[in-house]
């Protein structure tokens, strides 16, 4: 149970904060021990969050041709389906491509916005910040419909560009937030120091600002990637026979085809996202140990 908690970084904040005191370093600093009942609550909350995801992994090794739990037998049949059928592979490729490009675009835009807004105070800056964050609070369906209607006009429905643009919009807030928080610990005097030492602004950005906020940029980029990778509502509206992403193919496979291959594809997604989050944690600890 505890290992399950440690393996993912997607639990809510309360689980994370509760877990931390178990590290010996924290103990030595004299943090109170956690009462047993709180540990149980934390474990239950953690289970509640990750149990559904864990169901799908045993199912992906089933021999059955329909959904059954507990799974019957053991085989790699579903994985074979997934990795040999063109429709699955193509949608996986599409998803990865869209997510990469959308994350790249969101990272550039979000980082630039965070840098620009960092030194600004006042009403206008707050307004711009809110505008950039709006896609995080707007219901996905509202964005999806709006995107669909405008993209119809611009002939972007069903195209790679359309997916990338729409997914970049929902990725920007994550980058903005993580880069802004990274900038919180950034000393603006360093910019002046760098200028006094003869570096023009763009060199200062490359050699000073970027290395120091890289953690925020990487975090934001990964969040933007994951957000795009598992986005389904907008993708449903934008799909076309020529172009669809993995989540849409999964939706189809359940609603139209009743194909248990979805168990394998879901496992692949779960593992991919988990690996990314572990990378994030690794980036974090490496920085701190410096």
């Amino acid at each position: 149970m505890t290992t399950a908690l440690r393996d993912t970084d997607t639990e809510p904040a309360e689980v994370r904060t509760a877990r931390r005191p178990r590290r010996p370093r924290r103990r030595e600093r004299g943090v109170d021990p956690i009462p047993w009942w709180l540990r149980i609550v934390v474990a239950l909350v953690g289970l509640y969050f990750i149990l559904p995801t864990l169901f799908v992994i045993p199912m992906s090794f089933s021999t059955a041709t329909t959904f059954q739990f507990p799974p019957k037998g053991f085989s790699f049949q579903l994985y074979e389906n997934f990795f040999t059928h063109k429709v699955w592979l193509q949608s996986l490729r599409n998803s990865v491509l869209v997510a990469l490009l959308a994350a790249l675009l969101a990272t550039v835009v979000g980082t630039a916005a965070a840098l620009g807004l960092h030194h600004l105070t006042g009403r206008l800056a707050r307004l711009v910040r809110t505008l950039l964050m709006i896609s995080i609070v707007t219901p996905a369906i509202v964005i999806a419909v709006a995107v669909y209607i405008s993209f119809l006009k611009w002939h972007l429905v069903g195209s790679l560009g359309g997916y990338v643009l729409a997914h970049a919009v929902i990725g920007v807030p994550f980058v903005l937030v993580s880069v802004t928080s990274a900038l919180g610990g950034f000393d603006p005097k360093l910019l002046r120091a760098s200028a006094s030492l003869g570096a023009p602004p763009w060199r200062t950005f490359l050699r000073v600002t970027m290395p120091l906020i890289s953690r925020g940029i990487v975090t934001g980029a990964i969040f933007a990637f994951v957000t795009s990778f598992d986005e389904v509502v907008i993708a449903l509206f934008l799909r076309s026979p020529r172009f669809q992403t993995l989540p849409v193919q999964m939706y189809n496979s359940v609603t139209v085809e009743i194909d248990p291959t979805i168990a394998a594809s879901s496992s692949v997604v779960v593992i991919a996202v988990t690996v990314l989050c572990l990378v994030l944690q690794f980036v974090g600890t490496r920085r701190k140990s410096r």
Partner: protein
Amino acid sequence: MSVTTSHAAAPAPLPPRAGTRIRLANVTKDYGLAVPAVDDVSLTIEPGEFMTLLGPSGSGKTTTLNLIAGFETLTAGTISLNGADVSELPSHKRNLGMLFQNYALFPHMTVAQNVAYPLRERKLPKADITRKVAEVLDLVQLTGRDGHFPAQLSGGQQQRVALARAIVFGPKALLLDEPLGALDRNLRATLQLEIRRIHREVGSTFVFVTHDQEEAMNLSDRIALFNNGRIEQVGTPEALYQSPETLFTARFLGDSNVFELSRVAEGTGTWEDQTWPVDSRTVSPRVGAGGRSALVVRPEDVRLVAGDGVVPPGATSVPATIRDIEYMGAYRTAVLSLGRGNAVGRARLDATESKLGIGQPVLAWWLVERQRIVAA
């Protein structure tokens, strides 16, 4: 009011130095607030000079330094380095070294990488960079720390690294923005000596900003005292201490006994109901006709005698009461009620005066040439 310094006011003759003359002409910086941050300041800093911009916070000294560095744009006026106008030049093209209060070292780079930064920007060959970095780290006595990160060093060591980084590329001048402000007292004294030594060895122009008058007096060839965005007075530390021109200068540097004079005329000044002799040589040129003025005298120049004692002829004296005696370590200071009792003054006590008791009526006196009449 603008103060222009002439060559005649330059300090004692120094050996010729490879430095830069920094000239500020009618420099103004206005943020659109009630008062400009820097208001029509003119100042010439001589090659190789150690010039301190001194003043209380908000007096415009740091803004002036930032204007020289190019971190802020001028509202009016010009700044020139060795005669070349740099007013429009961005800071990275001005070739001036800068030291910051919080060191501003790049935390993700090692000591060697920090110091090599300006050399790499100037595209020097690798071998030259390595050699120069080693040389300058030796100069600031940090040999062997090249692989450390700033966070692994103490505050004093970090400021040495920053100093090495700021001088390694041979800047036209070094600008220092309260570089010792974050250090404790003992370390400050050590680094003051260090900065003076490096100034002597490097020989370039140093512009030092501080609010600490003691630091300014210890380090500077000349001090420019700032007040409300203007320069109050420029001169050697001795000149500022011994011949203040305004009450602000007298009060900012060292302790002063201040008597606001109601009238100065024909060799006399009037304070309360007393008329004192005034030596015209001790009157600041800034005391205008009919302007408000004050007599100031330093505590170490004030002598005390018991109430019925004798005062030397020609000395100015005023009846006083000792309210308290402060022990300062090397000496004692008497806190005095002067005249009718509204004015508070101080006198440094010598061995015999230390026998005077609290509450005792005394005569406080000083020689006329020790007093100074300043603009109030």
